[in-house]
């Protein structure tokens, strides 16, 4: 399974970004290969609709799950309709390393 995680910097030691749609980067962690790649979030600067645009981006990158602090209502229903799992991160200030360690 490929998991998308919003983060503030493109590095494993970076913090999870509290925002989904307007996060700076996405970390994509592939459970099979155990590889993590970082990609800039193309939706971050959207005037409107950053959430759905970011959802579209992570799904187009093959994400089957999103691990994030919280999601808005539009993103929640879109991801549900695409059968993309939402993994809620209950703890603040987690690093990408820590999140990946959960899988």
């Amino acid at each position: 399974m490929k998991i998308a995680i919003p983060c503030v910097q493109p590095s494993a030691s970076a913090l999870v970004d509290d925002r989904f749609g307007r996060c700076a980067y996405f970390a994509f962690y592939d459970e099979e290969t155990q590889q993590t790649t970082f990609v800039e979030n193309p939706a971050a600067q959207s005037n409107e609709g950053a959430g759905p645009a970011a959802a579209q981006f992570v799904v187009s990158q093959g994400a089957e799950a999103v691990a994030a602090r919280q999601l808005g209502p539009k993103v929640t229903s879109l991801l549900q309709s695409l059968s993309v799992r939402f993994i809620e991160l209950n703890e603040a200030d987690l690093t990408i390393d820590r999140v990946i360690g959960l899988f």
Partner: protein
Amino acid sequence: MIIAIASGKGGTGKTLVSTNLFQVSLDDRVDVVLVDCDAEEPNDAVFLPGEPKGMQTVTQQMPVIDKAVCTYCGRCHDWCSYNAIFFLREPRRIDVLEDLCHDCGACLAACKVGAITEKTVPIGTLSMRYINKRPALIEGRTLVGTASPVKIIKQAISEAGKHDLVILDAPPGISCPFIATVEPADYVVLVTEPTPFGLNDLALSIETLEQMGKPHGVVVNRAGLGDEALYRWLVDKGVLQLADIPFDRAIASVYAEGKLVVKVLPAYKPVFQTLLDRIRAQAHPSTIA
């Protein structure tokens, strides 16, 4: 002449100023119409007599995608500036996110196979109130669940037509609904209060109006409250102060009862009369003797 009464911060007294300016204009036998452009929570009607007549529905066009005809080329999605079309090639998925649609029509023009048609969606209402059989108040009202009141505001202003004086009671803030209201105005009156919140939001409003090249002046409401920082700022910036409305419990009481200050507290009538004269002089500088 079109005058917009606006403010950055909410609750500074736009409606107080709009409705009382309207009344002193009416008393002065001016051909005046008030337009309540705060379409997300209009309340000018509370202060004026009469029942609404001639209710109209405001609609917007919303794209509908025929998935049987769609080739999933993604052009409509690429053309949409508002992320209102959710599109995935794999898995195949295309949806209109209606909350985000601005009714611009770009997706229709983008589609090469005719998969997109439009449906008509109600988004708000316009109503007209008359005083002595003359149009007095036009109210734009957004339906619950509508994302943007901009089209309702534009239609309300256009419904007002030409009069000697059209007063637009603007929505708070400096986003699209504010822009849509001040855009057609010849002059903008910004109502503020002498508090840090009032000053902060006034500065944002003035920055926006300067970018738009809109002439403007300031009314300080609840004068006597707060501090002197606002007044210093107005002097430093060279912004015209049009009027002071004192911080007076009597004004608040009359307003809270849904009544007009100029009718119940005649002592304040000259404040609004002078304000009207100053606005007229500012909006038509050439008429100053």
